[in-house]
């Protein structure tokens, strides 16, 4: 008996040692500004590790680029303050994000956060950000529930799923004249909400909807699904003879489904959402398969405006890879924050002032004019449709104009 009690004691001793180490390992605190110019940190929170790391990196470098451009004076002219950039990894997970949020809240120089990137991570971290009155501007969290929790510090520069889904449905029924539509979602938080909104609107417009859920695969993002599911799924869609198939999910899984459908001889119209608005969709599905696919996004074409090409090239130079999903949104989110800071002037800015300022800011970015509703959602979001033609993704125009 005596011995075994000693065995319990030993771990506690070691644990105590670890605790000592922790004390010394506090987070790097705010840097002291030696010049008269105050320094503010704009932080990014999103997945930089795990299966979704690529998506997170797409955004991280965009925020970093916005900060360095603002410091150089290229985007906003001469600023009365210096900006710093800080990246914080939450693995895209709801259990990691509270501690990540605490690390940002505890860092007194952090004035606003771009992120959290994922809806789940946002749901877990936002109560903490809210309590600290630290503004968060998400470039990618599209879950509608986020705007209904009473978090006054929550903003997002993307339309929520309730905006995009109905837009797609309107296009499918009114423009394509589909009476029967097959919808598939990848079981991700993002796609489930989107497809529900789509189904509802399509049924309301008189179409019959058949819905299947096919979890995102291990070939794509951090899915758990089996690639081979698409064979059987394609068979079912083909035999339904529905003229339109709508896929809610990401480009890599959509490419697999599209390949399976075309190999099965399905000739209907393929539709998808902004998760698929990625040149990789065309390269992974193959030009012949991807041709004619219509993809929607609550954002305007990246390659259209001249400013965008400089953004793309600068981004590539900084990151080492091309702009991807949500890069431009993250860039807009950062610049919206910087514009707010600029408007607030020279005096030392408080976190609460940024929250207040964001509620009234109007900033024209790459993807849209950013202006927030009271609940943090972006105001007046238009859904645009794109089409794959000759291996390129070209813009067709806003849905409301297309259906006329």
């Amino acid at each position: 008996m005596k011995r075994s009690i000693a065995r319990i004691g030993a771990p506690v001793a070691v644990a105590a040692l670890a605790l000592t180490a922790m004390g010394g390992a506090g987070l790097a605190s705010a840097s002291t500004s030696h010049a008269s110019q105050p320094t503010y940190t704009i932080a990014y929170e999103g997945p930089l590790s795990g299966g979704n790391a690529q998506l997170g990196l797409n955004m991280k470098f965009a925020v970093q680029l916005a900060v360095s451009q603002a410091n150089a004076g290229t985007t906003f002219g001469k600023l009365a303050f210096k900006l710093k950039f800080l990246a914080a990894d939450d693995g895209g997970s709801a259990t990691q994000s509270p501690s990540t949020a605490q690390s940002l809240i505890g860092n007194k120089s952090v004035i606003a956060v771009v992120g959290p990137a994922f809806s789940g991570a946002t749901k877990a971290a936002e109560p903490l950000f809210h309590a600290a009155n630290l503004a968060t501007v998400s470039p990618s969290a599209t879950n509608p529930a986020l705007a209904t929790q009473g978090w006054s510090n929550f903003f997002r520069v993307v339309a929520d799923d309730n905006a995009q889904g109905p837009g797609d449905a309107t296009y499918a029924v009114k423009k394509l004249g589909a009476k029967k539509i097959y919808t598939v979602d990848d079981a991700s938080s993002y796609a489930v909400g989107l497809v529900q909104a789509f189904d509802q609107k399509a049924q309301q417009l008189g179409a019959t909807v058949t819905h299947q859920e096919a979890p995102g695969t291990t070939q794509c993002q951090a899915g758990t699904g089996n690639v081979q599911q698409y064979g059987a799924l394609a068979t079912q869609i083909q035999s339904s003879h529905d003229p339109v198939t709508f896929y809610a999910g990401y480009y890599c899984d959509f490419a697999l489904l599209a390949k399976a459908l075309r190999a099965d001889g399905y000739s209907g119209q393929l539709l998808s959402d902004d998760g698929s608005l990625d040149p990789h969709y065309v390269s992974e599905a193959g030009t012949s398969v991807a041709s004619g696919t219509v993809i929607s996004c609550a954002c305007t074409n990246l390659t259209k405006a001249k400013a965008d090409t400089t953004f793309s090239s600068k981004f590539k130079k900084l990151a080492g890879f091309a702009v991807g999903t949500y890069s431009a949104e993250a860039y807009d989110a950062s610049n919206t924050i910087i514009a707010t800071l600029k408007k607030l002037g020279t005096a030392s800015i408080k976190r609460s002032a940024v929250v207040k300022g964001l509620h009234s800011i109007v900033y024209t970015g790459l993807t849209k004019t950013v202006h927030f509703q009271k609940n943090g959602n972006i105001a007046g979001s238009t859904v645009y449709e794109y089409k794959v033609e000759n291996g390129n993704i070209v813009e067709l125009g806003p849905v409301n104009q297309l259906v006329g």
Partner: protein
Amino acid sequence: MSTVRAPTPLLRRLWLSTDARRLAACVAGGLVLAVMTGPEGSGTAPTSGFTGSLGNSRVIGFVVFGVVLWLLMTARQRYGTEIRAVSDRLSAAPRRLLPDKRVRGVFYLVLLGIAIGYPTVLNGFWQEVLVDQIGVYVLLALGLNVVVGYAGLLDLGYIAFYAIGAYSAAYWTGALPVHPLFHLNAFYAIPLAVLAAMLAGVILGAPTLRLRGDYLAIVTLGFGEIIEIVANNLQGVTGGAQGVIGIPHFSIHFLGVVYHWGLGSLPYYYLLLGFIVVVLIAFHFLENSRVGRAWVAIREDEVAAESSGINVLKYKVMAFAIGASTSGLAGMVEASKIGFVEPGDFTVQLSILILVLVIFGGMGSLPGAVIGAAVLQFLPQYLRVHPLFGFQQQDLYLYLGAILVVMMIFRPVGVFPSRRRKRELGLAEHGVGSADAMESTTGPIS
């Protein structure tokens, strides 16, 4: 297909020499470490990671590391008995320093005092980590330790019970789309959540624990996947992929005592600490009880245990259920702390992670489980803030995988082994007993 023939006698002699082969293995290990800590490659430049980590001067350090490792191993072999004597004396030191039960009691109280007092001076980040990453995982590791360490069963779907605990919390507090008959305060739902996880453990365990151990591993792995899929698919019940939001914090209204756990981490830390202490004491007595001895007997020789009248299946199911309920408790606390649950929190990777925590510390050892979990969960967070040796967060599972293999080769008993377990493994390696419960209980073959 004949044996590898060395072209020259010298090379052949070298190949046959254990020292030379071991040196080669050590240097190879150093090079692997160089690649692990080196830069990332990419699909378009698949060799860039390798050339970036092996093609420059940093590789010298790793080769030296390999050689030093070899020297140490050779020295250990040559002076093994002396070294072992020293290490035995060192590991016995705390025991000799604390000869008296009363002195030891004071020692534990001091440690507990530190565990209570110290976190108050930490910053918000570490307080949060103490709950979300360390406290919860210590509890999880303690539970899995009963299954893997005490009973010798491999459970790869352990996180599923955590999920059941978390969803129970959501259910009884009315956060799920399906509502219970009566809503409960989260605090009073704890027993129900633990019970639900335990029941799930019994329901899964009773039929499958008859199976051979490696089948059990696969079935539990499948069960873990199924729970995740079900949580994801049954949108009307679990909220689906979007998860459940709005699980309330704990609160007590009892005999005039009113307390609310809020957003802060410390109250949850103390709650977890309390659970951990209770679980530690309970498992300590369990280990030395009739049940604990039955587990030892099953581990060491299942057939002998069965023939001497031990109901093997019953004790296996018991271990499984105790592990499951501990996991459920952890899930319950975490769900209430964060206020949000989503199926993505319950991946197979996490089951593996908890297994690593237990094995690292030492299977079957309570101190091992606590230290293993605390240290291994603390390190990645520390490295997140202070990246050392080129550690990158996304490589965490690369390191954990390597730790598992290296531990199994060189120190299967873990860093803080239980003495009994250590002896068993030694015996098993000499052909006595099996040191695990991997044989089938009533399977027709073997």
